[in-house]
């Protein structure tokens, strides 16, 4: 099979392989079940975020408020369930989180689809408003005693075991949720007319209007969907950390957008695949984790991730331009 080097997916996959080879050479312990489960665990929340951001980018918009939505949701969900519905089982807790996230996403949706405001401006605004509102009016203290449903979910493991050296490894059940989110989103984007309409709007809003696509309706769906996923990610994060810290998550936006862009989605909209997004997340998680394992100071992380973005998105763009210049 011939590799298509103008695709981000190829490049990112090759970089991931190369990175693993380097890591394995310098630390023989790298190639182990423990490393794998560790990486998967770290990809759970990032992955759910990234899928949401990917959908927005495909529609030609951008959302930077999702981390604030997630933080708000996990805090409010933990607080409400503790106070009013401690009997709620784990799946109920996740559902409440998704509902709260969806409501916040609907605020973005109304402002963007309803009033036609620019997406970056709206979500920059709501990022600040959601976070500020939570810290001012709801609370700033960590909730260390989570409601029973979230505690139950926090303890659920898909598999656990012991390494030869006596250390433990485990894979959290939330990994299944991330996989389900990827599968569901893939289905929506590629197998429903709604998903094709999202791609169509990302390709040309004006054309979409002219052939009768309900552009506002589709945009509203997109921002609610991102909100739902952000709420889900926030609830998972708190359950796994066994604490709802209102200062968590915010600040992660750019890493997530980086992962999605690295995977081939374009900020202009209409392009990209979920495969690329998953690979992008894998690479970012790998870099964040392994640089520490390799004994490289963590401040190098941001340099490394920055370089990856420049090379990972710059190289295909440069190759596409060269191909275009040859064809001209």
């Amino acid at each position: 099979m011939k590799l298509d080097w103008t695709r981000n997916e190829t490049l990112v996959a090759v970089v991931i392989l190369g990175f693993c080879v380097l890591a394995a050479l310098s630390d023989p312990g790298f190639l182990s079940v423990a490393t794998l489960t560790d990486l998967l665990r770290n990809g759970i929340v990032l992955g759910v975020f990234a899928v949401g951001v990917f959908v927005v980018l495909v529609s030609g918009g951008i959302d930077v408020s999702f981390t604030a939505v997630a933080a708000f949701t996990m805090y409010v969900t933990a607080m409400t369930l503790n106070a009013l519905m401690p009997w709620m089982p784990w799946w109920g807790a996740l559902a409440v989180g998704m509902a709260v996230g969806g409501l916040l996403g609907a605020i973005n949706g109304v402002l963007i689809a309803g009033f036609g405001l620019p997406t970056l401006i709206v979500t920059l605004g709501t990022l600040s408003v959601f976070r500020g509102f939570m810290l001012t009016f709801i609370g700033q203290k960590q909730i260390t005693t989570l409601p029973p449903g979230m505690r139950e979910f926090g303890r659920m493991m898909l598999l656990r075991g012991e390494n030869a050296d006596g250390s433990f490894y485990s894979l959290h059940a939330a990994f299944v949720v991330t996989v389900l989110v990827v599968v569901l989103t893939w289905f929506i984007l590629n197998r429903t007319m709604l998903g094709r309409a999202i791609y169509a709007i990302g390709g040309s809003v004006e054309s979409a209007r002219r052939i009768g696509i309900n552009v506002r309706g589709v945009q509203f769906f997109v921002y609610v969907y991102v909100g739902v996923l952000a709420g889900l990610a926030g609830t998972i994060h708190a359950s796994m950390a066994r604490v709802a810290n209102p200062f968590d998550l915010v600040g992660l936006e750019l890493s997530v957008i980086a992962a999605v862009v690295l995977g081939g989605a374009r900020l202009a909209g209409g392009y990209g695949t979920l495969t690329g997004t998953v690979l992008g997340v894998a690479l970012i998680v790998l870099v964040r984790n392994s640089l520490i394992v390799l004994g490289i100071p963590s401040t190098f992380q941001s340099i490394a991730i920055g370089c990856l973005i420049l090379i990972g998105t710059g190289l295909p763009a440069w190759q596409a331009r060269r191909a275009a210049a040859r064809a001209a």
Partner: protein
Amino acid sequence: MTAPLVTLDGVTKTYAGITALDGVGFSIAAGEAVCLAGENGSGKSTLIKILAGVERPDRGTIAFSGAVQGALTPRVSTDAGIKVIFQDFSLFPNLSVAENIAMTAEMGAGARLVRHGRIRDTARLTLDRIGVDIPLDAAVETLSVAHKQLVAIARALATDAKLIIMDEPTTTLTEREVRSLLAIIRLLKADGVAVLFVSHKLAEVLEVCEHVVVLRNGAKVAEGPADQFDAASLTLHMTGRAVGETPPAPLPPGAPVLLQVEALAKPGVFDDVTFALRAGEVLGVAGLLGSGRTALAKALFGLVAPEAGTIRLDGRPVPLGDPIAAAAAGIGYVPEDRLTEGLFLTQSIARNIAIGRLDAHARGGGVLDLSALWGETRDWLKRLAVKAPDPEAAVRSLSGGNQQRVVLARWMARGPRVLVLNGPSVGVDVGSKAEIHGIIADLAAQGLGVIVISDDLPELMATCHRILVMKGGRMVEDLPGGSVTTDGLAHRLAS
């Protein structure tokens, strides 16, 4: 006798006191092709919008198959089988050919899930119907303009079109592509589909039309069977005056060579291009799409880097592949697509002209001498007769002809020696076109060398002293102007 497919009667529309359409009435029968001719601003686009249900007429009625429509909406119009193919085609560049063709039909059928099989079948069937083979999985952005147009036609057909309205269908097509479009129109007509061509460049579609309607300033000024019209009479009706094309004044015998291009080559694009351009000469370059004509034009201005050869201006070599050096040497380039390559659309007319002269009006420390700059800008607006209400208005508010003048004014202000004009009258109306040709003649009379690259063969015949024929990246012929007819030239290009 059955009622015509569409009947307009006394349709009138005013915008803010300006009458865009004034009592226009005509009808279109099934399987009939109608030419709606008119210059920019004659009310053509308003008429399209009214038929598409986007705008409501103030007075007058529209009937589909004899049934008078009360309030026409886009939905009603589409359901009645009226499909507009806009000049920009309104396709999705990121989606595949199959999806572009079938999406509207699928949405119309109320589909919620994507059925790849059905989408491909629809696309395959409609493409077969017009006898075209385009790969179904190709992304539309990778297609040529002509293929994009075919995809747009196929999309209209996929939703049971009864009347296809084509807005400016031929302006971006080459001679040969227009031929194949006409063949497809004949197929559609045989199938009972009616076609309404809306354009100011209609002479080439006349042969497939039964009926011609000419609009001027919102009113119908002429109507009749197509065989009663020809290019000249159409132009006369559209402009209300005879637009004369005079052949270029002969070149003085001793005119010095201005630009000498030797063995210019870019592998796979153009090869061994050699020609000389004399002062005061207008040189035409004719070639089909893919003949290398556009790449050559760009290469002369450094936008495409040739790999071998030389360009000399007044005997001095011009660095290759460097537009800034080419401009400094005195070469100007007016691109084919002035909207995306030639103008800052949202900026003012004055700024669009002034941008070319910023360095000349810079005082110490890079501060601009604004009064001199604006003074010169106003002067050029006047000299090129740009009809602009206000030099501070955005360029996008101007008509095509006036936009082209703004691009020309920008270059003229720099005092160039050689101007390369790529498709100088693409998308401008007939009246403006004659005036642009007049400007070209004036430029040559002032001693500039002008190179005109165009698909519009009558344009080349009317403006050029000499015409170079380009085929497969090579200059195959060098014809003195006036030695060939338009048909003869078309034949040489296609053979």
